[in-house]
């Protein structure tokens, strides 16, 4: 078997070399949040142009770190880079370009409870702080009359790695719970009061599915893909909203009015009757200057493609397409990239 594989491997490599002799390849790393969509984009772009964009979903925090270390050409993150972080990259300047928007969904595994559990920010914070430890707690029951909640211990599942998803989630909790703001705060990696850690959106989804009584925060695409059960969150206007592309877009509409020039803003707990309260951008972290002109041109090409063709594919994968007005602003920014 070994020899067969070796011979096959050599043949394959020879073919591989021949086929991609002229193939340009770029390396990127970061957000797991955007992974299902980004990998589709890169695959299709590769089919069209032959350019290989190798993206590893190791977490937003890791993406930022590797960009700073210069081991990747670009990053992707659900937490925008701070000015300090940007200054520590090889080129000294990085553009945060919104690529898509997604919802952070509260997924749970509670026997007898289907999708649609009503939760609000304060209760959610209490659960994740370990103040509420059982599914039949009065706070949860109060919002869900008519639902029979079992006597089951709550197991929190959070991210073990530095994550932009965590950032969006904790950003929301900080806004709605003064206790959370005081004890835990907002960051890509926080000191969790309780719970089990898993690596990546993928793993959190995996663990929640496995452990009865588990609850975790996961990106919408993963939840839909895996047919998980999830909660409807109470938004600022008092309505319980289902996470969906629509409710994310509604939330973003509100944010457009006050969008800063460099696109670095969070729109959790947004205004609007139909806005979903826990959502955010995923940004591509792109150096403003590429030292390799071939790479620079290829990636700029890709970015423009993602703004046109790419956005059209977002809904099929449960990501919200960017509003048109925003897209034209982003394209203007893309045009400033030099190589």
């Amino acid at each position, binding site marked *: 078997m070994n020899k067969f594989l070796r011979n096959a*491997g050599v043949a394959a490599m020879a073919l591989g070399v021949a086929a991609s002799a002229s193939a340009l390849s770029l390396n990127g790393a970061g957000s797991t949040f955007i992974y299902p969509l980004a990998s589709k984009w890169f695959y299709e772009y590769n089919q069209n142009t032959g350019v290989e964009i190798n993206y590893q979903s190791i977490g937003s925090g890791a993406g930022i770190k590797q960009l700073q270390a210069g081991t990747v050409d670009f990053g992707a993150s659900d937490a925008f880079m701070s000015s300090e972080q940007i200054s520590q990259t*090889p080129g000294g300047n990085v553009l945060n370009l919104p690529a898509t928007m997604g919802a952070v969904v509260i997924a749970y595994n509670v026997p007898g409870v289907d999708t649609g559990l009503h939760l609000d920010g304060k209760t959610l914070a209490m659960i994740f702080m370990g103040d509420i430890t059982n599914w039949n707690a009065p706070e949860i029951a109060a919002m869900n009359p008519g639902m029979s909640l079992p006597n089951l211990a709550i197991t929190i599942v959070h991210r073990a790695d530095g994550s932009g998803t965590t950032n969006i989630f904790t950003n929301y909790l900080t806004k709605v719970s003064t206790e959370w703001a005081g004890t835990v705060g907002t960051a890509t990696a926080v000191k969790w009061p309780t719970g089990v850690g898993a690596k990546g959106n993928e793993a959190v989804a995996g663990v929640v599915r496995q452990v009865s009584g588990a609850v975790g925060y996961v990106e919408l695409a993963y939840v839909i893909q895996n047919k998980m059960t999830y909660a409807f969150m109470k938004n600022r206007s008092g309505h319980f909203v289902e996470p969906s592309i629509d409710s994310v877009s509604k939330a973003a509409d509100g944010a457009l009015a006050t969008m800063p020039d460099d696109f670095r803003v969070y729109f959790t707990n947004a205004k609007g009757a139909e806005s979903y309260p826990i959502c955010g951008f995923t940004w591509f972290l792109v150096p403003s200057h590429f030292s390799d002109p071939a790479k620079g041109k290829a990636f700029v090409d890709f970015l423009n493609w993602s703004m046109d063709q790419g956005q059209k594919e977002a809904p099929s994968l449960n990501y919200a397409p960017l509003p048109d007005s925003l897209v034209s602003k982003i394209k203007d920014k893309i045009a400033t990239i030099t190589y």
Partner: protein
Amino acid sequence: MIIPTAPVRARTDLIMRGLCWAAMALALVPLISLLYLVVSKGLHRFDLDFFMHVPRPVGIPGGGMANALVGTLVLVLIASLFGMPIGVAAGLYLAEFGGGRFASAVRFWADVLTGVPSIVTGIFAYDILVKPMHSFSALAGGFALGTMMIPIIARITEEVVRLVPVSLREAALALGIPKWKSIIHVVLRTAMSGVATGLFLGATRVASETAPLLFTSFNNQYWNTSLGQPTASMTVQIFTYAISPYEEWRDMAWTGALVLLIIVLLASLASRLTLSKNRGANL
């Protein structure tokens, strides 16, 4: 005259012996469970696509782990390129000139290095190659694996070469062959099957490693054609797919595990057979 054993002692005898056999059976349960799991789940995607194609995004059928297979081969090749010669040479030194304190120190450090967790070797390779090169690379991954190979191969080579009888060496010298020639042409040649087994074991052992590759060779969705770029590998890909929430990826993780297991078990079986043949020949 047969003195009957007191019933308490006879019972203890049976219980303790029974416990030992129970332990044996207990060790077999996870092994059988594991084999059953890997085979039954791995067969599902054991198809041509798996061996011919690179990974595809979720929702698009026909993806495979072909690049990971080749990647592991490439990494083991790089590791072997410097790991094997240095390991064999070191083992030869220990066997042929290995009496003094220097040799004892070498043996001690070889044992320490074989016991060190492979993730530490990964950190080392990251500091030495990835940071300065500003890139994850197949080279860094191969380097990490190669440094792990050296002490393993050195120790096995030493053991095997020591088994070559003195009479053979003396005969070579009696014919007037210089010592260094006799080591290569007579001693090493005689021990060759054992040494080859050692090389084989060293290669399979590093092929099974995951941790050191996580931050050296990283991972790659495409065919990798450059040593200075990240490359896919069986172990890392299996790990990545296993913790993913997608059914189709988890299926491929099992198939990857099945392929890896087949390779490793075959190698282990082969080494056992050649080693026992070797032992027999030298008695």
